[in-house]
Structures are given as C-alpha cells and as structure tokens.
C-alpha cells in the first residue's frame, strides 16, 4: 500500500488530501497510470511541470518515472517555485 499526499490545490479537486493506493505499483510511472484510472484527468495534473514527486521525504529532481516504489512508501506532490525580494 502506498499513500499519496496531494497539495491543497489538487486536494480540493480530488476531495481528499491523501490517496491510498493498494494496486500493485512498482514505479512512479505505474503510479501515475493508476492515479489516472482512479481519478480521470488527474494524470495530466501529476505530469504538470509545477509538481515534483517526493518519496519518503526525498524530492526527486530527475529520472522520476523510473523511481521504484515499495509497499509502505509515502509519496507527495510538491509545487516547485521561486520567490524574491526586489
């Protein structure tokens, strides 16, 4: 079982801030497919360039779709932006 925590903006659309995935998934790529089946249209949101995946508090910066997942992993979608002071 894998838990997927959503940022507030997606949680509002999904109706929950945490999804529990009991389907067998071996990678982030598998996870996106499962999520897209479960929440039609969400695949595009997960593939949105704004969001990075973090697995067990490790943020993935590249080679993401191949990242393996295991039972009990905590996955989170985190927006990546920058700010500033003029």
């Amino acid at each position, binding site marked *: 079982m894998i838990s997927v925590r959503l940022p507030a*903006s997606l949680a509002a659309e999904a109706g929950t801030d945490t999804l529990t995935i009991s389907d067998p998934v071996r990678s982030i790529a598998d996870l996106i497919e499962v999520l897209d089946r479960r929440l039609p249209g969400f695949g595009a949101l997960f593939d*949105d*360039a*704004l969001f990075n995946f973090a697995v067990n508090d490790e943020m993935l910066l*590249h080679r993401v779709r191949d990242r393996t997942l295991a039972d009990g992993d905590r996955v989170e979608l985190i927006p*990546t932006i920058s700010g*500033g*002071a003029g």
Partner: protein
Amino acid sequence: MPLRDRVARLLAELPDRPQYPTQGATAFVDLERRAVSRAYTPLPVVRALLAGRGANMFYLYRLLDESLEPLDAEVPLIFGSGVLTGIVPSAARGNATSWSPESGVLMDCNAGDYFPSFMKMNGFDHLVLYARSPEWSLLHIRDGEIAFRDARPYLGLDNVDLRARVEADFGGTWTRDLAMASIARAGENLVLTSAIMAGPKSCYARGGPGAKMGALRLKAIVVQGQTHDFETAQPYKGYNREIAQKLLATSVVKHALRTTGTPFLYKPSRILGAMGTKNNQETTWTDQLDANHIDPYRPGMAGCFRCPVNCRPLNDLKTDPSDRYGRGDGPEYVTLGKFGPNIGIDRIESVIRLNNVCNDLGLDTASTGSAIAWAMELFQRGMITNRETGGLDLRWGDAAAVEQLLFMLSRREGFGGVLADGARAVERGHYPPEALRYRMAVKGLMQSDPHDARILKAFALGLAVSTRGMDHLRNRVTLEINARINDDPAFKATLYGGPVSAAPTAYDGKELAVRVCENLFAVGDAVGMCRFTTKLFNSPSLPGLDQFAAQIGNVTGLVTEPADLDRVGLNIMGVERLINRRLGVGRQDDTLPERWFEEPVTVGAYAGEKIDRQEFDAMLSRFYAISNLTEDGVPQDAWRRELEQTLGGL
C-alpha cells in the same frame, strides 16, 4: 566633472519630445536647487536597452563619477518604469538604480505595487534625482508636474504611520489614485540594508536604496492621478487579454501563486536539504514553517496594479487590534527563510510578526536577515561577545531579541549600528577580518534568497555572476529543480538553446541556462514585467520574449523580434558589467562564499555536495565565452565599442 555639468551635457544630446507612442519623459530633478528638466531617452538607446532597468543603466553610465562615494549626493538615484509598465497585465514593475552604498557595486532593485505604474501614468519613464536637498523634502507628482514639498512633518515616521499621514494630507486612495515611494527611519538614518518602500510591503529592496534616498534628504515621492488608457501605436487590449489568459492558465499561477504565494517554496527547499539554516551552517529546518502553517493567518491575497494574479499573501495574527505588528502584508518566501531557519526561528507567528516589523521599518529582509544571521554565527563562534553587542545575547532563535535588534538597527542604536552597516561590518572595523569567512555575500551583497545553492550548480553560477551581487532574481534557473523538464532533455535544450545536464549537481551546460535566464529577466525588467510571471523563472509556459516583442510592437510601434530582445538582455548585462568595471569589479568577484567551496552539505539525498573550485572556474569561463565577455568578465572589445557608441559621452 560636476554632476550638474554632466546632466547639462546629457540634456543637450537628448530629444525634447517622445520618440514613440507611450514614451514618458525623463525628469532630471535637482533636489538642492529645486529644479526640474525634462527630456526623452533617444531611440538608439531604447533599441539597445529599452526602458526601466535598461535605460536606467544608460543614465547611470553617463552620470556616474566613480571617484566619489555611493552616498555622495553627486551620485544620482534613478527610478525607471518599463516600456510596458502599467499597460500590460502583470507588468507593474520599475527599477531604482545607483551605486550601492551597501555593496559598493552596481545598485539596481525592482518593485511593483502601484508606484511604477502611476509614475508612467503621469508621463514619466525615468526620474533622475541628485544634489542633496537643503531640508528634508517630498516630491509630489500630479497631472504630469513635479512639485517640491517640505517633508519635515513626516520625518521620523515609519511606513505604517507615513502612509496614513500622506493619505490624510494629500487625499486619494491607495491602489486607486495614490501611490508612493518612500523611506522610513532606517533610510533616514542611512542604514545600509534599508529599502525604498513602494507599498505596505513592496519595496525597492536590494543594495541599500533607502540609505541612498536618505542621503539625498528625500523622504518620499507621492504620485497622484486617475488611471487611464494609453494612446498606443496599434490596438493592444486584445493581446493583453491573451496575455492575461496565458497567465491565469499556467499551473504555477493556478495552483500556487494565486492561492498561497511564494511560501510554497519553503517545503521543497528543506526537503532537498537546500534551506539556508543558521547562516548556512546547516541546510534543513522544521516543517513548522511549511506554507500550510501560514494558512490560518492568511485572510486573503493582494496584488499589484492591473495584475490578475494577486500573489501577495496578507497576514493577520489575530492579536489585539492595537498591536501594530499583528497584521500586514507578506511574508514572501525570502522573508520566511531569512527570518526563520537562517536565524533559527521555528514559530511561524514569530516570522510573520518580524516580517511586519521589517515592512514598517523599511528594511530589506534579505540583507537585514543575513546581517543578523552573520552576527549570530560570529557570536556562536566567540568572534564577537557581549562586550561588542552591548550585553545582547545573540542566540539563535530568540525572536524577541531579533525584534529589539530591528528597532536598534533602524535607529543605529548600540549594536544596531553595527548591523546597520550590513555586509560592510568588517570594512568599518566592527568585526575582525576573519569574520568575512562566514559572510554569505558576493560582490558585497548578502544573498537574496534563503536557498543554499551548493547542490544546484546553475543556481550557484547565477549567484556568482549576478551584476548586483548575490541575487537569484537576476538569472535563477529555477527549472533546474523541475523534474519534468530535467527528464525531457529535448525540451530542456529548446528552452536553453543547447544541452543542459539533467542532474542538478552537474556542471555541464549550466552556463547556457544562466545565460538565457539572465537575458530574459533583464528584458523583463526593462519592460516592467513581474519576475514571478516571466517565462523560465517559475514555468516554461509564462509570457516571454515572443509576447514581449509582440506587445512592444503594438504599444510603441517599434518593430522588434524575440532575437532582438534577447540581444537587449545581453546588452543590459554588458552595460552593467562596464559600470561595475569602473567600480573595480573583475573575475575575482564572480565567485561564491568560501563556505560553499569548503563545507559539504551534511543532510538529505545530496549529502556531501559542495562547489568544486575547478569545475566552477571552468563553468565560469564557459559562461564568459557564450556571453561575449573577456576572461575578466567584461564585454569583448568589438561589443564594448558598440555599446560605448550607443551610450555616448566618451
């Protein structure tokens, strides 16, 4: 040559009427003689540098006397609004430019809110301010005229009280027909980390502009007038709608900026192990400062002139209404980082309160937070003691002590006078020379962003080569941490004009990304576009050179292609480097704090990472080569001559 002679010579060369529809005048304001002269930026300069930050550099280049000191009243303070400021959605910005009293190199800072747009509404693209006013004065701009007012009744007022008094005395309503650029007591007292406030929070922040304005004895510039549409070369509103739709359809705007604002970045930074903590001795901090902890204190969002994004979080700590610092505007991510992890504070309420104090006192939170963090590390190491601090215990995380320090700093009282000298504390004899080892600054400017860039090599290169000092807003390759883009090498190569390594820790090709961002962001500043909504800073989908070129054509009638604008961005950087060269800046200054070369990151997936000197030096050389710069970081001869011909005055 005295500045008045330089101004006279320049005025003789400048056109006396607009060179294109919507062009505003440049007002040369002699504060001592209370005299105003007007002219217009010539077309060759506009074609090479546009307006805003770009033409500001033209005026500074022509008027700067580097034999003086930055706070000398013969060194001008220059405001500039962009070509599209006040006209295009999210283009509400302007720049303030001079010789930085804080860093000693180029000062160039940028603000939004309403002042830059209202300046343009009154027919001014640039204000060149010089010569010290005999008494404290206030400039009042209305119906295209500039009047000098006595500012003595406003002396000693900080931002909250000043805004209330000005609104009462001048009439009008903020955000509708009244705007202001002003200094608080920190600026009056020449605090080197002081800002020029352009709103409740918005400010021209970096490089000590508040001190520069204070040195001219100018308390405020009040701008009034009804907003109006501009007479443009071609219809432009239809394309404005397209730009607004593009903004609002972009994921970063929909899912982050409009809902929470920039504090979202705190969490990825701390998870990555890239959150500057305790003056960058550590790189991660508590989850108690994650953006969701601000939610209960965020009553809404605010925005700048005609910006559909509204990304500025307001705050309300729900304290007693008489609590001056119980509510305000912000914090942005920078303030969250600088007044959270960087000084060891772990309560969100404390960070919000200190944010409100800084906004009232007119302080740049980046430099002020960094100066405090530096002092705290020196105290931790025993390099300064209670004797130097006047008995103050500079412990990490003591929010009450920090609040006290901010007031002392703004008044230059006791140890506050040391902090008020910012990054120059060693030079002015407050700290021993070895303290420089722990100063998180480049070219004398403390780091803008709370991010620790030992992991991210494009970010690190950008901080090193930024012309105003250690600042990410000039060229940050934010998409370096974007996994979707890293995993699509073909798309990434399209964005940056060549292959850029997908690995954040790699050095390969990172110079290409910094070059493209630096050009684009300089153009953004020259047209007045907000950085948050400019392509490549937060998204590959936001308006960029294509949209700027199209709307410049519609608004001004000047035909320009995206490639021409890319060249404008390069030119702006080139002129800035020519100015910096006159101020003694060379290759040795395009570097990073020692700590990042010597101390590895100790936490997270990238533990062990630091900046490799040889790799960095090679990357810097590649950056110079693709930027048409010499090995010492100035424009190559042919380009330098071309720039000098455009700038004239030699």
